[in-house]
């Protein structure tokens, strides 16, 4: 995983401004970096990640710009020399530190130098400004000239522009370094290629794209959710349910092992699901081994001429170290020329996973066995969604299309991700597929139908089986944990999800604002729990524990407070620093927005009957704590 940049991979380009851009690296295209220039995509395919490149000038007769790998020694030379001889001022700072320095350029101005502290414009290439500035020595023509031949990747331009602005001479060394920092970012034609894993996707969505779409969920929050919900690789199916099972009956999993199954509510467009899938090892399609061997692989001369005819072949194995599992090999032969879609060049309208054009795996086989469950038992995610279809569109960056999972039969998510709506979960009898009988036709009928109709029939049967399995297994409960990042009221989510959790299962809920979570925590306050034990709601008299678990709640007890232990709320935020010789300090600015909070707790199983608390009486001094909902003086209320 993420060894070399694969053709058609989604990647992040980190630009000199510190901004990132996401794009799919399609072979034989030109990647434009806007004002920084452009280069052929083939120059980064099958190359390592995290190298810093510099755009070279075109070397006629070549019609494209080549890239140069900037060695670390060169990247850091200025910083290191300044730390070696302490009195020479710092030169360029190569590692953009994320400081928000990318000030939008006014129209007509190509380059502007801005003092980051005061926001004052120090120098600009705008003609009017230049003319007005009597001491300005560089003409517009000169600048244009410089930009055209941009020798040495624009460094000259910077130098001249710096010199031309005599005011800079009067600045202190300290602020001079600041100006240079900005300018360097603006001009140097350097960039690096980063893998679009979940951390990078989150970073980009937050910083450059649209934080609202992911409820402002920062990496800190994603990380806390995953840990507190204990999301990890949840084991393998012990009985291989992939092997065709003629009766279509699922074998019972080993009862001693509890398969890792997590319940998810995701209103972040799939970012949360992607993050959890990453933790479980089911997010990335693992490339076949020969691709990892890289470009040294011997090739036929024919293949060498055009782009390689090899498409990434995916397996469901989770481990980048693991060689391809033979059972998961797609039926398409490696050298099948059809694998390389001819349409590549003219159908570029949507990002497409390499096998998007393939037929579902082993269609013939599936026909005889429509009712076989196409899902794994262990290591699964079950997503409950508010609309009739889930919105998990960000998964497409991982070659998975939730609206068409059968098109990626070997993607691990195809077998490990299940989705159902709240209606399907709570009132499945109202779901038309669920409430109907499985379509059933006699072999004679089948034979009499046209291929088209037969296809529909099989599709319907498969969908029926899928729907039944997803709904029944979700309603069956026993989940290993609950992770939520939603705009819905967490109390309503908990009311229906807590009973579906296994005893001891952790709960982790993200919210942009704290209020929904304080309201939730208040449902489990000490006072409320005490009152529940002392005098439970009259309507529950004579109810079994099971019935009490599914109780709908009332005003006084919105939730059964005995089902959750350790309700608490936390928040976390990182602060980034600039570390430079003699100039180490936290960044001056960073993103605001939603603070973000995480609620955690455990699903517990109350004992039958009335359970009195015991413990030392609290002294008066602990008055304040007494009022808290989270004192959790459990046994000793």
């Amino acid at each position: 995983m993420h060894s070399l940049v694969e053709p058609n991979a989604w990647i992040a380009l980190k630009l000199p401004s510190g901004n990132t851009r996401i794009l799919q690296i399609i072979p034989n295209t030109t990647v434009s970096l806007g004002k920084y220039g452009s280069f052929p995509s083939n120059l980064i395919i099958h190359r390592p990640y995290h190298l810093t490149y510099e755009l070279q000038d075109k070397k006629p007769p070549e019609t494209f710009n080549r890239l140069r790998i900037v060695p670390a020694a060169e990247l850091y030379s200025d910083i290191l020399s300044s730390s070696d001889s302490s009195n020479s001022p710092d030169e360029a700072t190569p590692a953009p530190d994320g400081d928000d320095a990318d000030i939008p350029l006014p129209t007509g101005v190509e380059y502007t130098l801005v003092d980051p502290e005061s926001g004052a414009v120090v120098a600009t290439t705008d003609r009017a400004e230049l003319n007005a500035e009597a001491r300005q020595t560089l003409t517009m023509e000169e600048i244009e000239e410089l930009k055209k031949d941009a020798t040495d990747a624009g460094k000259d331009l910077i130098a001249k522009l710096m010199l031309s602005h005599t005011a800079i001479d009067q600045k202190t060394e300290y602020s001079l370094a600041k100006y240079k920092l900005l300018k360097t970012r603006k001009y140097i034609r350097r960039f690096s290629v980063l893998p679009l894993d979940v951390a990078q996707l989150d970073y980009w969505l937050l910083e450059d794209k649209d934080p609202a779409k992911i409820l402002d969920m920062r990496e800190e929050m994603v990380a806390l959710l995953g840990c507190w919900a204990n999301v990890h690789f949840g084991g393998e199916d012990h009985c291989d349910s992939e092997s065709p099972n003629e009766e279509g009956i699922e074998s019972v999993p080993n009862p001693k092992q509890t398969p890792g199954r997590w319940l998810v509510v995701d209103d972040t467009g799939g970012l949360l699901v992607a993050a959890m899938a990453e933790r479980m090892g089911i997010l990335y399609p693992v490339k076949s081994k020969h691709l990892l061997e890289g470009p040294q692989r011997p090739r036929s001369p024919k293949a060498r001429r055009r782009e390689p005819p090899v498409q990434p072949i995916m397996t469901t194995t989770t481990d980048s170290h693991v060689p391809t599992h033979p059972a998961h090999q797609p039926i398409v032969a490696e050298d099948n020329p059809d694998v390389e879609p001819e349409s590549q060049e003219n159908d570029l309208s949507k990002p497409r996973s390499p096998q998007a054009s393939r037929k579902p795996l082993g269609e013939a086989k599936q026909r005889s066995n429509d009712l076989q469950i196409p899902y794994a038992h262990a290591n699964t995610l079950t997503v409950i969604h508010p609309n009739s279809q889930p919105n998990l569109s960000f998964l497409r960056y991982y070659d998975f299309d939730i609206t068409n999972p059968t098109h990626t039969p070997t993607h691990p998510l195809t077998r490990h991700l299940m989705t159902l709506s709240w209606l399907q979960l709570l009132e499945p009898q109202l779901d038309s597929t669920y409430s109907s009988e499985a379509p059933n036709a006699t072999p004679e009928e089948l034979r009499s139908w046209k291929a088209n109709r037969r296809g529909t029939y099989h599709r319907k049967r498969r969908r029926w089986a899928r729907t039944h399995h997803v709904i029944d297994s979700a309603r069956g409960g026993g989940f290993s944990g609950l992770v939520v990042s939603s705009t819905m009221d967490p109390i309503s989510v908990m009311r229906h999800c807590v009973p579906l959790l296994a005893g001891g299962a952790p709960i982790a809920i993200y919210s942009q604002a704290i209020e929904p979570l304080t309201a939730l925590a208040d449902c489990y306050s000490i006072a409320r729990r005490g009152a529940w034990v002392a005098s439970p709601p009259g309507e529950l008299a004579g109810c079994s524990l099971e019935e009490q678990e599914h109780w709908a709640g009332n005003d006084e007890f919105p939730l059964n407070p005995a089902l959750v232990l350790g309700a608490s709320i936390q928040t976390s935020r990182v602060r980034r620093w600039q570390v430079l010789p003699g100039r180490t300090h936290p960044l001056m600015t960073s993103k605001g927005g939603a603070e973000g909070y995480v609620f955690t707790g455990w699903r517990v199983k109350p004992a039958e009957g009335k359970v009195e608390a015991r413990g030392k009486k609290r002294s008066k001094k602990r008055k304040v704590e007494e009022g808290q909902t989270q004192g959790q003086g459990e046994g000793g209320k």
Partner: protein
Amino acid sequence: METYKVSPFLDPGSLTTPDTLSIVHLSRDNIQPVYLQDTTGAVNGYAEGAVINTRFGSFPHSTLINKPWGSQIRASIVDTGSRGRKRKLEAIAADIAAEDTPDDGTGEDASSAGPTKDVKTAASGFIHILPPTPEVWTTSLPHRTQVVYTPDYSYILHRIRARPGMHIIEAGAGSGSFTHASARAVYNGYPTNGGEKKGKVWSFEFNEDRYKKMQEEIKSHLLEGLVQITHRDVYNDGFLVDGESPEADCVFLDLPAPWRALPHLSRRRPTPSQLASAGLEPLNGEESEWKSPLRSDRSVYICTFSPCIEQVTKTIDTMRRLGWMEIEMVEVAHRRINVMRERIGYNMPTERGANQSAGNVEEAVARLKEVERRFKEFNKGRPGATDANMDEDEEMLDEGDLVNGNASRVREAEGLEDTPSTKPWMVGRLIHRTEAEIKTHTSYLVFAILPQEWSEEQEAAAYETWPCGKESKVIGSLNKEARKQEKREMLEGKKRKKGPGGNKADGNHDSDQKNI
């Protein structure tokens, strides 16, 4: 080849089982690890076998075994009288004396051979029993060093991409807090005969006691095969284990001088001048062939964890000299938040935690008027009504009652009653505040990435496979001119009706395209 029992950290099963780690939850800040023992016969003088004593009651292990995880367990009536007086004192001294004997089995005195006594449930008291996770372990583990807590380790593991199947180097192991969290992160099954490489933690600790303790813990937590701890001074002796490379994908250094360990984490032997410039000694074993502990065909992610800024400066300086990229330093500010009901007002129930002062201006004015009215009324009936001197024996409403918030007296006097519909736990405004004490600084986190090496031969081969010069489309961000041109072409294409595919560049997802 060994077969492994799955660690309760990774799959606890659905019921508690004997001889595996369980977590007893007494209160939010009192969580205890316990190895449940299935004993027949008395232990430590308890006829009931091993017993956990807490201030919430006594809990024989037999009442905790084979229960669904998360079960609430009632306290039992345990006869402590028959036990030695000394032991009893010990048990009281410790808030919870988990009288479970250590897992090595020593110290167990199953002297009386008879069957375990039947256990009677006590009238009150309970605990909950939870499966172990790195999060609860971190709060309950025996501290031998400073440990890395959940807010830091969750973020670190996320940033260094510790994922199923990865190999992670960790030094020093310390108390094993990070070890457990990273074992869970990289776990993708136990090693099998097939020789498939599975996720693994390569842990290093140079303090012998801690090393030994960790080794025991790994064993008793069933993490063997997933965590390998090596007794090592990594500054001097690096990270190879039995001469072999861990082939690490990611690295976490929680050491006093991470920069001294960094040279060993190189792809090729650092040059003497590189080391000298960083103020470091030459490495041991200069003669032998260099073997990197890092995985060669992938970028390696690192995090170092240091409390002081001087450590950070040195670490980053060394990282720059050794070619690490994307160097970034952050600190994590984490807060737990308490939620409570704020009860302010004259008509709040007279409970602890309620503040019986005026809840708003109207309430204050109403109360003042009332006082004024009574005062007048009281004096009206008296001769010399204007005389401010009052008979001290006179039973009257003292203003002090109001001021001091003796509300019940006021209420009685006023005939006020709580509206019976509002339950005490629903009264007052729901508020929150940061916990009483916060950790304002744990450590500075330095992150960096070491890309794989890329030779000119590799580059030449890649170039031959992926030749340039026949680019058909522009992707990525376009400058204004190119964008205009594209638009023109697209419009023309539309006019011509369904040309061969759109001209819109694929994969263009820069910020001006909001269609995700």
